[in-house]
């Protein structure tokens, strides 16, 4: 299977690879997928005092398209509010990377990952308020 140029670029030079402290109250972690399916994505976002995403990191086990989708996502979410970040659609990722139909699930996984990271952050702030 031939890969698109943008997939190759993100695959060769993945942006924002790394790991942040999952216990930090300003860090949200989203881990989606399963080894059985051949894809696992871990996306982490860190927000500043104004609720804007100041940093994002990822690690992905999966095919080149899955790696590229998560790499692209970390670039896109930086500087966005949580609300803005939650608006990102898998179709936009798929379009930007020119993913073929069999790889659309990689972009779906990326959308799930950012939603999961945002949910994690929200549950942390809810429990902080409650206590």
């Amino acid at each position, binding site marked *: *299977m031939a*890969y698109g140029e943008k997939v190759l670029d993100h*695959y060769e030079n*993945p942006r924002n*690879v790394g*790991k942040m402290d999952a216990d930090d109250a300003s860090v949200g972690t989203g*881990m*989606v*997928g*399963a*080894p*059985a*399916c*051949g*894809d*696992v*994505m*871990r996306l982490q976002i860190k927000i500043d005092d104004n609720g804007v995403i100041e940093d994002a990191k990822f*690690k*992905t*086990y*999966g*095919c*080149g398209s*899955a*790696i590229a989708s998560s790499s692209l996502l970390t670039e896109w979410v930086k500087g966005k509010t949580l609300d803005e970040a939650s608006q990102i659609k898998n179709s936009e990722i798929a379009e930007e990377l020119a993913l073929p139909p*069999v790889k659309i*699930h990689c972009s*779906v*996984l990326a959308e*799930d990952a950012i939603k*999961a990271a945002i949910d994690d952050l929200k549950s942390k702030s809810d429990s902080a308020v409650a206590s």
Partner: protein
Amino acid sequence: MQLPIYLDYSATTPVDPRVAEKMSACLTNEGNFGNAASRSHSFGWQAEEAIEIGRAQVADLINADPREIVWTSGATESDNLAIKGAAHFYQKNGKHIITSSIEHKAVLDTCRQLEREGYEITYLPPDENGITQPSAVEAAIREDTVLVSIMHANNEIGVVNDVAAIGEITRARKIIFHVDGAQSVGKIPVDVAAMKIDLLSMCAHKMYGPKGIGALYVCRKPRVRIEAQIHGGGHERGMRSGTLPTHQIVGFGEAAHVAKEGMAQENARLITLRQRLWDGVCDMEEVYLNGHPEQRLPGALNVSFNFVEGESLIMALKDLAISSGSACTSASLEPSYVLRALGRSDELAHSSLRFSVGRFTTEEDVDYAIVQVRAAVEKLRDLSPLWDMYKDGIDLNSVQWAAH
């Protein structure tokens, strides 16, 4: 050294120049282009003569009689002809067939078709080394078993079954024994008489012959009968009609001749290369050899690099022509059904690479491949959340995954 390096000889092989030369002499107006079925002139006689030489060469490779060779288009057709042909012919004796769960799709899908026709199939699981144990075959035999179909060498992991031991069991009970020899014939010694094989599928393109030609060995003593699947002019004693492709058959014959001549020496060289490749990667953490360590084809190696996904690994290894799983199934997103049958975890089944070295592979090629593989695995592990978790001592089986 020419890039990319071809390490996928299990998928197919280039045609040996000696073979190509013989083939090209059977095509043009100046060459041996006649129809072997033409009895009325010398063009036909010459073509027939060339075909009979090819038949004798292929028969010689497997210790058969030339009259036991039926030409087909390849191993897939041979598997279809053998399994459907024998099942249909002997259906009055019973409708139970035994095979293994890690056969090539040409066998498995043919069996599925027979299931739709009312046959019952037993799919034997291999042991953890990928071997189908003769004792397992024996235990699965029933009163109504008419056919056992077990591959000689596995296309994905390269392990070699003890077909002689299975042949003893089936011959004693007068059950037809079909062997898919697509990966073994021309690579390792095959003796249909000593192994008590009744039907043997072969193809030319895995042994430096052309694509599009194969053969089915059909045992004469004891006489094995099959029902034809392709009807027409009654070629090949009625078992497979169709004008014989002289150039393809001549190519197959010459490939068989070349393979037999140098087999022992070539295999010693290939085993050294395969071992060199394995030695070059096996000291990395979490690297697993799939399939029996010794009972395998000289040139075949299948390795799982845990916590790295196979497709991304192949993408990183763009200077190496390799595959994850077999070429026939690498278009799908499923983990390898062969590795799953060996009891490998999903992660390991998703993380496998199939390397196969062959006639034109050099030591330099292997050394280059080792450097590339090590670098790619390290790069992708740096990207892998599963590797992180492994390093943090987290048991991946204890994690509640959000499957999608």
